[in-house]
Structure formats: structure tokens, C-alpha cells
């Protein structure tokens, strides 16, 4: 329905590959520069490390959205929900690790449960004290939800804006649900006051660096997976589905299965991003489910250039850099800028920043 020319990523070109690895290297230097003495000209503050680490997880989320929207034409306005679910799973692990150090000093129950008078841990909290299990759940729960929703939606051929509205309603419903105290997820306040992860105290340079590198590795890994998919035969089917789903179906492909696979993979990546995000920012609350967050993530992809993997990453970094700068420099203007980005990108830059560079190259 949209652009008819399939924009396959030009991964084979050497300069782009070089630029990519260069960018990864520069990012990898950040925690090291943080270790330099503060007098050094190259010293990088703690804030930069945390913020960049956060942006890296956003970039993973943007990749996930790009895979579904840019390649397959599934515009999900509920990816924030998968991100938040991954975050909540990791948050549950971090809450369990607080142990008796909480304000109420209960050996097992997190503070909010003591406060709300829980006699014991709800069954769905069991096992979250083990990192492998919690990490698995951070990927599994978003994937499972995507499987159910995707199966129901794709089976009855809900496409286009209907799917967008449906996924938006999904994240809205989840937000309302997570705001409830009796869900057992901390209600309004969510989870915060984390102490440690994998034996590291969280507010130390070591923990920051480890989380940063973990996020970077996850980003490179996700990029690699998406890139392999995009150049494979499957990747071509995805683009074909985006541009003419009926024709692909008539050619004998089961578009439902293909879309379901992409949607679930995308949700798992979003969950991974959320799981890495929470220990770095130190808080997760139901606000993460708000539909505005999901649609903001979509605009990162649109700004960077959908249908190109590098575009998603560039978009996530550039929009969030703009946000971080503008919300401190001129808070009133940020929403105008964001709204303006939505309008400008859809009207004037359908291929995003990457498209702009490509044009300049020629």
C-alpha cells in the first residue's frame, strides 16, 4: 500500500560497514573514558554513560519496530507494551534481590507487598529470584503475548490501521491493569530502589559499565539477527508482504505464519531492550505502557528511515539526543518539536535521515 519500490538495505557497501563498526567502537569507548580522572579533557560524566546506555536499549526497541513496520508493514502502536513487560520481568528480579534491605526489612516480600498486606509471595513471583529464569521470562512473556495477539489478529486478516489501533488498545489496557494495586506489580509506583544485579551493586561504575556493554552487545546482536533476516529469502518475503500482501498469499506463501514469526521476534527484541533498560534507569512503572511511549518509538524509526536497519538505530539516537537536550534547554518546546517531527517526516522525509544521506550521496 505504501512505497512500491522495495528498499533493501545496502549492507554490502564497504563504507557503511566501516561507519557502523566505527560507531560501535566510539560507543564502546564511553565507559572507558568515564574511568579517566575528572581533570582529563576526555573524561565523560556518569550521566553520559547512563543516558547513552538508555539510548542503546531504545535503539534495540527501534530495531524491533523497524523489523515489523519498516520491513513487513505491521505498524504496531503497542511495542512499548512488550518493552515494558520485559522491563517488569527484570524489575521483578531486581525486587527479589533487594531481600531484607527493603524499608520494612521483610526477608522475601518486596516493600509494596508488605505495605499492601500480602501474606506471602504470589505464585507468579516465584522463581524470579533466579537471574536465568527472570531473563528468560523477560523475553518469553512479550513473545507469548505477541504470539496470542498476532495469531488472533493476523488470522482474521486485521491489517493496516486496524492493527495499529488494536495494538494501541492493548498497551492502553495493560497500562490500566498495571496501575491497579491488586495486580501484584506495585501499582502506580511500579518498582524502584533496586540494590544489586548479579552480585554487583547497581550504583557503581562497574555495574554501569557492565550494563552498558551488555546493552551494546545486545544491540550488535539484534542488528546482526535483523540483518541476516533482511538479506535472506525470508526478508524478501517480508518486503513483499509489506508492498502487496494479497499477491504474496496468492503465490502460495502463508503470510499469517510469516507475519506471526516477525511479530513475535520483534516482541522478544523489545522485551530484551526493556530488560536492559530497567536496571540502567533504576525504575519501572505503568507509565511505560502509555500509548504515547509506543508511538514515540515509532517516530524514531520514521525519523531515522524505516525499512533500513541503520535508520532505526540512527533515529533512536538522534531523536533521543534531541529530546535530552531540548527537555532541559527549552522544555516547553519539546512537544512542538516532537509533533513537528511527526508531521515533517511523514510529509517531507518518507525515507528518513538515511534517505536524505543516500540522496546526498548520489
Amino acid at each position, binding site marked *: *500500500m*505504501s512505497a512500491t519500490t522495495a528498499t533493501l538495505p545496502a549492507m554490502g557497501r564497504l563504507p557503511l560497514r566501516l561507519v557502523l563498526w566505527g560507531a560501535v567502537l566510539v560507543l564502546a569507548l564511553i565507559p572507558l573514558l568515564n574511568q579517566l580522572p575528572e581533570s582529563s579533557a576526555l573524561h565523560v560524566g556518569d550521566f553520559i554513560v547512563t543516558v547513552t546506555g538508555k539510548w542503546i536499549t531504545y535503539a534495540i526497541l527501534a530495531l524491533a519496530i523497524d523489523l515489523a*513496520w519498516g520491513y513487513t508493514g505491521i*505498524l504496531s502502536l503497542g511495542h512499548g507494551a512488550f518493552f515494558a513487560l520485559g522491563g517488569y520481568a527484570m524489575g521483578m528480579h531486581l525486587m527479589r534481590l533487594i531481600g531484607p534491605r527493603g524499608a520494612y526489612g521483610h526477608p522475601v516480600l518486596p516493600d509494596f507487598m508488605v505495605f499492601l498486606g500480602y501474606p506471602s509471595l504470589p505464585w507468579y513471583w516465584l522463581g524470579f529470584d533466579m537471574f536465568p529464569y527472570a531473563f528468560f521470562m523477560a523475553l518469553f512473556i512479550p513473545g507469548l503475548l505477541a504470539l496470542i*495477539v498476532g495469531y*488472533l489478529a493476523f*488470522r*482474521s*486478516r*486485521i491489517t*493496516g*490501521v*486496524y492493527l*495499529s*489501533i*488494536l495494538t*494501541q*488498545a*492493548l498497551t*492502553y*489496557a495493560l497500562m*490500566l*491493569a498495571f*496501575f*491497579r494495586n491488586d495486580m501484584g506489580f506495585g501499582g502506580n509506583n511500579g518498582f524502584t530502589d533496586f540494590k544489586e544485579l548479579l552480585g554487583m551493586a547497581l550504583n557503581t561504575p562497574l555495574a554501569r559499565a557492565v550494563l552498558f556493554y551488555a546493552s551494546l552487545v545486545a544491540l550488535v546482536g539484534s542488528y546482526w539477527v535483523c540483518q541476516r533476516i533482511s538479506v535472506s529469502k525470508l526478508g524478501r518475503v517480508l518486503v513483499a508482504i509489506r508492498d502487496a500482501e494479497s499477491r504474496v498469499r496468492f503465490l502460495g506463501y502463508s503470510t499469517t505464519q510469516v507475519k506471526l514469526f516477525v511479530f513475535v521476534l520483534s516482541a522478544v527484541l523489545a522485551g530484551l531492550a526493556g530488560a536492559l533498560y530497567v536496571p540502567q534507569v533504576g525504575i519501572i512503572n505503568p507509565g511505560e505502557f502509555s*500509548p504515547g511511549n509506543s*508511538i514515540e518509538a*515509532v*517516530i524514531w524509526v*520514521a525519523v531515522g528511515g524505516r525499512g533500513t536497519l541503520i535508520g532505526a538505530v540512527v533515529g533512536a539516537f538522534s531523536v533521543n539526543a534531541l529530546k535530552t537536550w531540548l527537555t532541559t534547554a527549552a522544555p*516547553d518546546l519539546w*512537544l*512542538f518539536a*516532537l*509533533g*513537528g*517531527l*511527526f*508531521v515533517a*517526516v*511523514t*510529509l517531507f522525509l*518518507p525515507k528518513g535521515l538515511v534517505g536524505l544521506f543516500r540522496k546526498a550521496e548520489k
Partner: protein
Amino acid sequence: MKRLIFGFALALLLAAGSAAPARAQDAFTAALPGLAGGFGQIAEAVEKLGTSADPRALPLLQALQEGRLLKREDGTLLIQTDAGTTEALTGRAAEPGDAEAVRVNNRVRGALRGALGSLQILSTNPEERLKAAEDVFRSRSAQNIAPLEAALARETVPAIRTQLELSLAASRLASPDNAVRLQGINALAEVTDQNARALLLETKAQVPELARQIDAAVAKIEGRLKVRQMVETFFQGLSLGSVLLLAALGLAVTFGVMGVINMAHGEMVMLGAYATYMVQEALHGTFLEPAALPLAIPAAFLLAAAVGAVLERGLIRYLYGRPLETLLMTFGVGMILQQAVRLIFGAQNREVTSPAWMQGTLTLGGLSLTANRVWIIVFGLLVLGLVVAAIRYTRFGLEMRAVVQNRRIAATMGIRTGRVDALTFAFGSGIAGMAGVALSQIDNVSPNLGTGYIIDSFMVVVFGGVGSLAGTLVGALTLGVLNKVMEPYAGAVLAKVVVLVGIMLFIQRRPRGMFALKGRAAEA
């Protein structure tokens, strides 16, 4: 026949009028000295005065209640008013001197309430009579039976009669005689009232031998209360449904008819609410002030429609045929509108006052309905009628339908399709603005007023069937009632979640909504 009854009533009244004072004079004079005694004596005297139908008893007891009844050393009672001090017995003017106020305790207060009630029941002011009847219900003592019966015999106002009967039944329950109590129980069983139920249960504890009859009466009351509650829930559902209807009608035009997905629709609603606020402020202090709300309706329509027309001509038309881009772009426009309003009017809520005729509650056969909710239901249906009429009977509606069905042929017939697009979008936005007028009455007028309704409105349109106004009506009312019916069981938030999930499952069965378009139009 009528004349006969009238004559009889007149005779009765005259008899009561001439006979009562002679007897009552004695009761009043006899009871008066008790007020100068201890608390027990005062309470007894108050009760006696309450059953005397003496005209002097009411001001006396009111004076006692308000601490204006004074007592001299020698026991003479004085009533103090703004006009001066008089002797209670003779009515002659007197000097207060060193007289002290007569003090009351809780027992006296209780007696006073009942006595004042039974005296005021005979008042000529209907409002006072109603209030008195309610007071007697609360104080309930067997002594009130006789005055209540007398009052009931001459009462003609239906609402007061109902209250009097309730109070009489309640007083009968306090009687020591079981036969009289039973009379009271049977009378209460016919009343649909929480208080009556509570009263019966209280009596059951005191008089166990009547438990069986009381249980039967309570069951009767509860049955009727349940029916009333169901009706009330249904009404609340309709009210919520009409709010959804108002918010979704504009979408049914822009999304349903034009296929343009406008995420800034909620902001159009918000603009309508702010237009209401501006009209109210502009007319504040002028003679038009009471008409501010009706005048706000066209103002809101025009403001939202103008913004809509600009949006369509300036931005949306370049994205026709690209629904996902339209969605993102209009979302951005919504953010800009929200932030602009926030900067102009501030982030805090703005106060929009309801006109007097929209305040208070309407009582309809024992049901009490909030007036503004009733008005919103009426308004929602009016707007729906307006939209249907505009689409069906106007030249603009005809052109709109023509463009939707076949744009090219419509163009060859001389219809300026671009103009029709702009007008249609402006029309849909204007309806959203009118919804804003209604929402300003029940919700906070704040920059993010619209965001709360946008998802629900889309759900209504999708659920009802895209492109069908009948579907929008049925969809909105169904979702409203479903939400309210589930609320007591699941809580407001969970009800919403359940409804959302329910719609997702419903779309499985009928992907095109309840009222699906059939034939060629469905492919558009």
C-alpha cells in the same frame, strides 16, 4: 359527589379548628412549667407540647432548640427574639434581666426533634411540612402516630403524603402493640427505600416475635431495590454510552466515511471544551450569561471545524491513500495542539460552570438521575440526528456520499471533490468540537482531555462497523452499558480491560464490526 366531600372536609376542618384550642389551651398551660425543671421534666414537657396542636407551642419549642428560651429565678419562662423578649405564657413584653437560657441535653434534643416535627407537619408551608415529615421519620416515637394520622388526613401534596405514610409506618413500629407494629411493617413493605429496610432490620432485633413478617417485608423491599439499581446502572451505562457516542460520531465521519484516521480527533474535542470555556468567560457578567452553554455549541463547532479544514487542506490531503502515515502525522498534530493549548491556557484545569437548569437531580418514579447526564443523553441523540440529517438530506451530504462511493465519477459530474473532502473533514471535526461542549460539563477541561477518549472512540467505531452511523450508535451504547454493568463486579479499570479484550475477540468473529458494509462499498 365532589361537593359533598368538600363540604365534609370543610366541616371537619372547622370542627378541628374550634374544638382544638379549648382542649389544647389546657395542655399548653399544663406542660409549660415542666420546661423550668430538670432535663427529664423538660423532655416530658416537650413531648406533651408536641402532641398539643397549640399555635404557641411551635415558636416556644423553636426558641428552646435555638437557646432563646430564658428562665427567671422564679421559674417564669421568657422567649427572646430579635423584636424583644416576651413572657412565654402570656405573650406580654418583659425584661430579660438576669434570666438564664434553658439548657438542653441529648434526650431533650431527641424529644425536641420529634415534637417540632409533629407540630410543623401542620404548617401551611409545604416545604416545611415535608422537612417535618422527614424529621418525624428519624425521631420515630409511638406518640407521633396520632398527629401523623391527622396530618395525613388533610395532606394533599403527593410527595408529602408519601413521606408522611413512611413516617407513620416508622412510628407504628415504635408502638408497644404488636398489631400496630404489624400495620407499620406491612406499610413499609410497600416502600422502596434503603431507610425503610434498615428500620425494619433494626426492629427485628428488638421484636423477635415479628421476625417472620419483617423478613418477608425486607425481602420485598430488597427485590424492588435491586430492580431500581439495575435501572440506575442501565441509565449510567446509557449516559457513558452517549458520551462515547458524541466522541465517536465525528470519527464515524472522518474515519468511517472518509477513511482518514485522525489521531488528533481527541484534540478537536479538547478544543471544543476550551471554546466553551472561552464563550463562558466572554459572556461573564453580561445578560447573555445564562445562555453561555447553548451559545458555546456553535462556537465549538466552528472552531473545531475551522481547525479541521486547515488540517485537511494543509496536511492530510497530501497523505491520502497512506493511512499509516496519516495516523502518525495527525498524532503529531495532536501533540502540537495540546502543547499550544497548554501554553496559552496553562496546564491546570479550567472551570466551566453548569447552568442552573443542568444542575441537581431529576426524580423519576423513585429514581434519581443527575440532570447533566440526562442532558448529555439528549444532546448525544440530537447530534446523531443532526449528522444523519446532514448526510441524508442536504446537498453537501449528497456530494459527500457521491465522493465516497466513486470519486472520479463524482468529479466528472461537476462535484469539486477537494472542497467536499475539506468540508467533510471540517464537519467531522466540528462534531468533535460539539462533543467537547458536552464533556466540559462532566470532565476536567484540561489540555489532555481528548486523550482519554480517543482509544474508546476508535473502539466504538471499529466495534460498530466502520462507515455505519447506526453501528456507531449501537456500538457506543453497548460499550457504555457493558462498562457500567461490569463495574460493580470487576471495578472500573478491570471493566475497561475486559471490554477492550472483548472487542479484540469480537473482531475475530466479525472483522468488519457489527454493522458491516456489504457489497462494493466494503472494498473501499
